[in-house]
């Protein structure tokens, strides 16, 4: 049952991603509405499938790569829907839904076996740490999409070749402000995730996890977003530089997310 719901959610996300890409070439209001409807349907099914899995395993379903990627997509879609209804950012779906689909698809490719949770992960810290981390990552995923939109729109304005998506993309200022807001949400979440992770590691293993590549990457990511916020607050850096930094930040998250698995061992080998 959980699997069927997951597959259906994946299908809806796929349809939404295709429509969202088609929107780049030929945007109509009807297309945008259908895309949003598919996202909402997919999200509802996805939510139920995650609850199923939670019930089946008895723990927050983020312990295997399959679950982690699925939960990551879920958080991103949640934020997308919030942004879509709060700000009505034109074409946001075209820059986010393909990413969501890729995440979901990679989740679908991975083993869906439900394994018993290893003893060292059996702690309430597990739920807190992972949910914080994923919500933070989802904010950064959104800020990545918005950052790309900013660069596209800025290219139109700077190069003076008005056309293509220029009319349909939001203003530079609103893209920049939404990006900033997303980072101010994501950064505290990431910070808390790192702190709770450290606490937990201290309790479970009696010390920080030295040399765990995931931890190192997280600190690098944290540093990138710290730079974004710092330069903005101190020197007022905004616009292109902020957009570029938020794109780099998210790429580093992706490297951490998928790269780690390829690199091998470590405590975070499952995500």
């Amino acid at each position: 049952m959980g699997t069927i719901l997951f597959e259906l959610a994946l299908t809806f996300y796929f349809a939404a991603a295709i429509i969202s890409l088609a929107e780049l070439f030929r945007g109509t209001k009807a297309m945008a509405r259908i895309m949003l409807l598919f996202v909402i349907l997919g999200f509802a099914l996805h939510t139920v499938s995650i609850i199923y899995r939670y019930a089946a395993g008895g723990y927050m379903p983020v312990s295997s790569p399959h679950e982690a990627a699925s939960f990551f997509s879920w958080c991103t879609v949640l934020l997308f829907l919030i942004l879509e209804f709060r700000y009505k950012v034109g074409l946001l779906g075209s820059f986010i839904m393909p990413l969501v689909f890729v995440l979901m698809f990679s989740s679908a490719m991975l083993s869906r076996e439900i394994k018993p949770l290893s003893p060292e992960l059996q702690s309430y810290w597990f739920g807190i740490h992972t949910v914080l981390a994923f919500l933070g990552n989802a904010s950064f995923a959104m800020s990545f999409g918005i950052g790309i939109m900013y660069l596209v729109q800025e290219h139109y304005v700077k190069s003076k070749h008005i056309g293509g998506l220029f009319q349909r993309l939001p203003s530079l200022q609103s893209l920049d402000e939404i990006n900033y807001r997303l980072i101010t949400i994501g950064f505290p979440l990431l910070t808390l995730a790192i702190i709770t992770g450290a606490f937990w590691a201290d309790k479970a293993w009696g010390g920080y996890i030295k040399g765990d590549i995931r931890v190192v990457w997280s600190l690098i990511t944290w540093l990138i977003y710290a730079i974004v916020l710092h330069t903005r607050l101190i020197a007022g850096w905004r616009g292109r530089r902020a957009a570029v930094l938020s794109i780099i930040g998210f790429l580093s998250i992706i490297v951490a997310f998928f790269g780690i698995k390829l690199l091998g061992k470590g405590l975070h080998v499952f995500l």
Partner: protein
Amino acid sequence: MKILVVGLNHKTADIDVREKLAFDGAKLEGGLSGLKTLPEVREALILSTCNRVEMYANVSDIAKAYDSIKDFLSQFHGIDKTALEKSLYKYENLDAVHHVFRVASSLDSMVVGEPQILGQMKDAFEFALSKKTTGVLLNKLMKKAISVAKRIRTETKIAENAVSISFAAVELAKKIFTDLSTKSFMLLGAGEMAELAARHLMSSGVKDVIVANRTYETGCNLAKEFNGRAIKFEDFLREMVNTDIVICSTGASKYVLMKDDMHKIIKERRHKPVFIIDISVPRNIDPGINDVDNVYLYDVDDLKGVVDTNKQERQKEAERAERIVSEEIETFQRWQSSLDSVPAIIALRDKADAIKKEELDRLLNKIPSLGEKEKKDIEYMASAIINKLIHPPTAALKEDAEDKDILIATLKRLYGLNEKE
């Protein structure tokens, strides 16, 4: 019942001819009643704008009506008829419908997609309605034309992109800033085009206006006009730290703003974006400034480029609009043929026959004891009644009456005869 359009527009006549033939102000009423009293004209409407003068009419005979309208025009405006003929165009029936739809949708306008024509069309229609010079056909034509224009406006982007330099500047400003009403704006120097752009910006919500002019006096006057404040020209660099939009047209022979100045200003502004429009020729602002992050510089040629792209966009949208027009002509044609008398007569007869059958069946069921002969007699009487009842309207419709269209519409309404699509 034939539709005739006679007129002239910016493509067929120069401004002086259009001026002479315009039905402006008080002339419109006289013109309209004069047109309506022509013997071949049953319904009439006049559309008179600065780019076109057109007469829409429901006429009994196209060729005769066209001649009388030409005579009428040359008399009314005191113009030689042969000179007039050179500028006139004429459309009949479906071509006329096509033309009216295109005009309402602004496909025939000088600037394709301009919004004024639809309003002018509505005004012309309302005026004709108030003078009772239109009837079933022209009313339907005008209503349909207005709805086609609206459909095109919502389904295509024909009116979306700015096609004048000053509007293009506003459009760009809106894609840089979210809310223009919170932005401040500086007019550096004064020129006609700069003032026009300033006015467009202000009608888009910009409130905080600063004027910096070489002659302080002129600046003060202009500032008063815009409800802003004037500053000394030398102070404009300092003031730019707090200014989001700058329109420059100083007439200076060298750059008044250099890249290095801009670097300093943008740093002091904490990198808040600046939109600079340099309308002056020769340019007054170092073009290299556009390379500074968060600074967007447009000169006249850039804006012209934007306008050209937008015009091409509109042209593409116009092609889609033409397809919509063709579709809508079909629905109009269906409506028009429903006004033809034959289907109306058939519908009336069908209805009468249906009633006869229903009532006969009911009666024969009630009295099963009736013999064959009685049944025949009753049937005969029923047929005789309906035939006598529908004979006069049928005969009236078969005549080629002046007001046939009205009769058909009335008949349909009175008997509830539904049109078959």
